[in-house]
Structures are given as C-alpha cells and as structure tokens.
C-alpha cells in the first residue's frame, strides 16, 4: 500500500509537472518562466492558502489541539537548527553550518501546500490553524541560526544589523506577512467573503499549484550542478535530516493523538526546509555563508524528496500507526 500511495502521488499532475520542469532543464530546453511570474504565483498560493485557512478557522473555531500544535511547531523550529548545527559543524565552517541549520529549522510553504492538495485529493480533513503553524515556523530558525553563528564566531555584529535587526527582519519577511495577513483576513471576513473569493482562492488553486510546480522543477534542476561541489555528505544530510525530523513529527503526533490530516502537515513542516525566506535573510545577515551551498541543498534535494516520496511515505506511516 505504501508503494501504491507513492505511485499515486507520482501520477498526480503537480508532481508530474515538477518532473517536466526538471526534464526541461536536463535536455537544455529554453523553456523558462519569467521571474515576476514565479513571484506572482507564489504570492497567490500564500494568499489563497492563508485566506482559506482563516475561513476554516473561523468555522471550526479554536479547539483544544490548537495550542498543542502551535507549541510543537515552534518547539521544533528551535530544536532542529540547534541539533543540525552541531552535525554540520563537524564538516563545515560555522557560517555555513549555521546557514544550513536555519534553512532546515524553517519550512517550505510550497511543500506544505502540496501536502494540503495531497490531503484534499484523499478527502482527508485538517484544521485551519495548521496554516498558522506554518507561518510561525518560518522565522524562529533564522534567529537561532544567526545566534549560534554569532556565539561561535564570538563576533560582534559585522554588518550594522544587531540580533534585533535580524529578529525584526525575520518577522517582517514577505511570506510571513502574506500568510498571517491572509489568515487573519480569512477569519475576519467570514462566509460572505469566502463565497465571493472561492473561484479565485479555491477553484483554480490546484491548477495554479500545478503550473507553479513546473516552475519549481525548473528552479530545482538548475541547482543540481552547483550541488556537485557540496559533496555526498551534504546530499545525504538533505535526505536523512528530513527523515529524522519526519520521524520525530510522526512520533509526537502519534503520542499526542493528533488527527491524521494535521499530523501529516505538521510532519511535512518538520521535514521541509526553506529555500526562499531563510536564504534571503541569511544572505543579508551572514554574507560569509555560501548560498551555493544552502540554496541548492533545500531546493534541489530536500524539496523534491519531500514532494515526490516524503509526503506519501509520511502519510502511510501516520495511517499505519494511527
């Protein structure tokens, strides 16, 4: 059955278009999607997922589990960068170790959204506040990562940006604002708003996601060459760490009896790594770290792994346990 789930997932349009994007790069096709379009599509996805989540939340209301889930989410986004930092420090300098640790403590919204559409395809329910959990997991890891680097380099802030600066930036980054904002608006505007926006935020959502994954395939594949430099240690890291984090997630969800849908999303949040928000923040806060390392790792290894194999695998384990 596990295999069946994976095969079904491989046969879903979003994953197939992700492959198409990768193939296009491999056969050196001139197929490309303008950057402003990538930006627009990703904003649309955050807009829609945030708004729909808010509407859900407004219907369901805050139930007991909410604090538990948010708590677990934030806890993991603090723990992951710490433990991965020490693993990474055995092979990399402090700057790159901290940078990569931060990306894995944070999350990938697109992986999350793909998991949401995976659940939708199987009519498995999940709670609106999982979107809040996603938003809250984006930033803490950045701060942890930077603090670790500052500590181990005993370096006073070298680009006029105090830890506060990082903190502020981490919290005001575009995707956090977009998700939380849309979520709150979803809560406030309620049923009428929902109905009016549904064709835009819900009906075409899956289609836009599918088209966007084509773009992700192009982006990911372009990062494969730079990967080669980073060597087998990092590539292994990019697959094993998500598996460890997923295992922790699945275990915790089982222990706390979190319902299947939420459990998958939480697990995917733990297992995914950021390739936009964190790299951007790190690029500014830690110019010494090499983006040629931390971007390809999350974008060309962990992202495809989660989208193609991870999601169905985690789902299977959760069902098997629960």
């Amino acid at each position: 059955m596990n295999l069946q789930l994976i095969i079904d997932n491989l046969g879903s349009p979003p994953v197939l278009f992700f492959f198409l994007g990768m193939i296009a790069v491999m056969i050196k096709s001139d197929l490309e999607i303008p950057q402003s379009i990538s930006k627009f599509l990703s904003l649309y996805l955050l807009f829609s997922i945030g708004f729909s989540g808010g509407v859900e939340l407004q219907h369901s209301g805050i139930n007991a589990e909410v604090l538990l889930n948010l708590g677990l989410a934030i806890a993991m986004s603090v723990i992951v960068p710490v433990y991965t930092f020490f693993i990474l420090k055995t092979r990399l300098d402090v700057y790159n170790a901290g940078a990569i640790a931060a990306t894995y403590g944070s999350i990938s919204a697109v992986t999350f959204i793909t998991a949401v559409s995976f659940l939708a395809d199987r009519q498995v329910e999940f709670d609106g506040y999982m979107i809040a959990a996603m938003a809250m997991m984006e930033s803490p890891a950045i701060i942890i990562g930077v603090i670790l680097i500052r500590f181990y380099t005993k370096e006073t802030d070298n680009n006029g940006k105090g830890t506060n600066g990082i903190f502020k930036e981490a919290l005001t980054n575009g995707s956090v604002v977009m998700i939380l904002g849309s979520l709150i608006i979803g809560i406030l505007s309620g049923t009428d708003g929902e109905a009016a926006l549904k064709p835009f935020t819900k009906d075409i959502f899956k289609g836009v996601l599918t088209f966007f994954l084509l773009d992700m395939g192009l982006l990911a594949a372009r990062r494969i060459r730079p990967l080669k430099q980073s060597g087998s240690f990092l590539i292994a890291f990019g697959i094993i760490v998500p598996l460890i984090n997923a295992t922790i997630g699945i275990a915790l969800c089982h222990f706390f009896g979190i319902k299947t849908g939420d459990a998958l999303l939480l697990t995917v949040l733990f297992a995914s790594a950021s390739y936009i928000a964190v790299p951007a923040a790190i690029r500014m806060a830690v110019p010494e770290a090499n983006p040629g390392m931390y971007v390809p790792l999350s974008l060309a290894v962990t992202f495809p792994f989660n989208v193609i194999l991870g999601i169905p695998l985690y789902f299977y384990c959760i069902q098997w346990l629960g």
Partner: protein
Amino acid sequence: MKAIKKIEIVTGSLDAKKVINLLDEKGIKGYTIIKNVMGNGDKGYQDGDGLHEAFQNKYIMVACSEEELEKLVEPLRAILKKSGGICLVSDAQWLVH
C-alpha cells in the same frame, strides 16, 4: 560639455539601499538605478533565481563633481567592505542642458 566623475556601483539589491541612503544623506541629487541585475563575484552567482531580491544586484550610476566624489569614497568603501560588490570611477563629459 563639463568634465565630471562617473561612479558605477554594483551590489546586492538589499545592500544597494544603503548606498542610496548614503547618496541622499550626502545631498547627491542625481543618480540612476537599474534593478534585477545578475552577476558573479566573491559571493558567487547572483542569478535572481532564488525567487527573492536578495539574489539579485542593483546597478547604481552617479554623475557628480570631483568634490562630491571625495565625500562619497570612504563611506562607499565602508559599505562595500561589508556587503561586497564593485565600485568603478571614470571620467566623462556631461552634456550640460
């Protein structure tokens, strides 16, 4: 025509803000900015593919007097020391209008 100094700066999109603030502080009234600039340098490729401004450069061009240049050199050096990038200075004739 009037002899002037032409300053060209290429640096990360977000660092460029610091440069522009500097120009405004120093009372430089005229400058030109080109966005979405790609490149390669010590920080590796800036290919704009990261879905985020942070992985693009801005190109800034300033035509100014010798004196204005003097005022800018040191603070510019300080900014680029931190953020990386490049700053070129050359001579040009300004077509006064």
